[in-house]
């Protein structure tokens, strides 16, 4: 899987990128894409929070970002779909390529990047003014797209997010009437409705109970066949359960920026880490 490059990547480098990106919008569903981050450094004002992080997120795989709080995992994740720059003083260096196209280049607008790289946040946040069905479809209206059969799209996305059975008889109720775990799956369905190539998840289960967490983990495993997933998690068992690849972030000493200490196949990172600091963290002997 990892060695087979998608045809799009080949076409991307061969032909005009503008043509490729409009071609991408035409075909649906997209299937998965790869993200290559090279030497990414992030600042908030003058404070450097992340230094020279390089990581490849392979198509159709789940990549987990682990590490203690404040080590820059979320900042790294948010730089992948240009959410980092929403903070007025934020700055960034390095390149991030989506299928070979730099997402910070002029060919890509932030809105295009974000509709191709979706995001699910830590706190479930359905739009309160919308019904369940409207929440799923919100992304279409928000990004100026349309769909010939909205009802079918709602069902498809809710099924993929593992929520259809629970809400199929009350699609007109408000999104806030659902439980926390259901709300989070609704947010996943909402992110899926715009057919992203990549889905970023920022601690999607940290506010949820173990049963809801398990359902969402199942959803992640099912989704990763068709979509590339990057997930930030504090829960190391979760990283082991859901991810194929794992990157360990660490701040060496207070005031330093976060760096990637080790990245590789999840089994290797957890069972046979090459760096002693990774070993200490994954075996719980940290600090």
């Amino acid at each position, binding site marked *: 899987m990892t060695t087979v490059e998608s045809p799009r990547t080949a076409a991307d480098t061969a032909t005009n990128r503008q043509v490729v990106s409009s071609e991408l919008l035409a075909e649906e569903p997209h299937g998965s894409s790869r993200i290559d981050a090279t030497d990414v450094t992030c600042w908030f004002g003058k404070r450097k929070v992340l230094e020279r992080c390089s990581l490849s997120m392979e198509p159709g795989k789940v990549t987990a970002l682990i590490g203690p709080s404040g080590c820059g995992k979320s900042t790294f994740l948010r730089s992948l779909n240009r959410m980092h720059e929403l903070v007025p003083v934020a700055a960034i260096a390095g390149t991030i390529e989506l299928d070979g196209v730099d997402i910070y280049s002029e060919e890509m607008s932030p809105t295009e990047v974000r509709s191709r790289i979706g995001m699910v946040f830590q706190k479930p946040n359905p739009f309160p003014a919308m019904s369940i069905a409207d929440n799923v479809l919100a992304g279409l209206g928000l990004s100026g797209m349309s769909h010939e059969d909205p009802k079918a799209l709602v069902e498809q996305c809710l099924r993929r997010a593992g929520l259809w059975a629970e809400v199929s008889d009350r699609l007109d109720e*408000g999104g806030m009437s659902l439980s926390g775990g259901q709300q989070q799956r609704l947010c996943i369905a909402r992110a899926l409705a715009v057919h992203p190539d990549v889905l970023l998840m920022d601690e999607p289960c940290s506010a949820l109970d173990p049963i809801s967490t398990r359902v969402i983990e199942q959803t992640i495993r099912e989704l990763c066949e068709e979509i590339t997933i990057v997930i930030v998690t504090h829960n190391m068992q979760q990283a082991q359960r859901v991810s194929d690849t794992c990157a360990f972030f660490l701040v060496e000493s207070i005031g330093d920026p976060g760096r990637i200490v080790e990245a590789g196949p999840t089994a290797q990172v957890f069972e046979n880490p090459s760096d002693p600091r990774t070993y200490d963290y994954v075996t719980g002997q940290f600090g």
Partner: protein
Amino acid sequence: MSLLDERPLDETPVPDAQDQEPIEEQVPFRPRALVRSERVELMLAVASGVTGSAVMCLLFDWTHPLTFAIWALLLFLGSTYLLARDSQSPIVATDRLVTTLVWTSGGIAVSVLLWMLGYVVVKGIAGLNFEYLTSDLSKVGPLDEGGGVFHALVGTLEQMLIASVLSIPIAILTAVYLHEIHGRLSGIVRFVIDAMSGLPSIVAGLFIYTVWVLQGRGPSGLAAGLALAILMIPTVTRTAEEMLKTIDDGLRESALALGAPQWRSVMQVVLPTARSGLITASILGIARAVGETAPVLLTAFGSSSINWSPVNGPQADLPLYIYQLLRQPNPAQIARAWSGALVLVLLVLILFVLARVIGERGARVRGGSR
């Protein structure tokens, strides 16, 4: 789930559990309710306040009921403290004094409002009938019976409509500029809006009088609407901004993460979520403007006959109608003014209820139960 089912319920035994042993009915008690000794102390404090104040009024020959009420209140608070200190401790007594003070303050605020409303109703209800609501003052002599408020009601409604249409969209978009766009001029705009909210209403009236009425356009309902719009903008802007602040940033981020440009995020997510709050902001603005007399006096001039056209000729409105009639010497005119005040109060009440209903219905249909 099974844990939940097996947990014994505190108050009501499971009604259909026939196979179980009958569970003895539990008697609930409310730990925060007043116990008997506290009730006795409360009654004692009330009694001492009332009798003490009555004695003082007799001794010093005070006759005004307000004097009696104030002294009764002070003595009541004092004896509440002393009784609690005697029976419990100074700490408990202070706690009870503060609690009583808070309750009484709320009570005073409500009773002053009810007193005022009651006064308006009592004074105005006699003259309020169908004829009063549907006729104007054009054919009524100074001492005649009859006549009504219709022309002022029409004027108020037209002027408020004009002022709302002009000011509410500007105010809400300004709030969006201040809180959503965070534009470079936010600081200056906020300063100007704050300064405007302290603007005396007569100055707004004078401004429109000079730049509009005196420029050959003459008095009109439109001119009054312009002056009132100036007064509404700061109130609605600041309240709307506060309402936008209550919207979770996560919603904005989610909208942007779905590939939305910012204007779509504002139009489709932020404003609909803040809908009920924005209606409240608008109503507060209208409530500020609907009672204004001075700017209307300078811009619409007032009138005693019906003028349907808001763009042409002098027009009356309710506060002006009340003001002008109250200054007349004969009782028939003054009675009409009171009825006008009642109509004004009812109008504001209807607007408030209407806005609540619209806001709530929107929230229930779209937002679901919570």
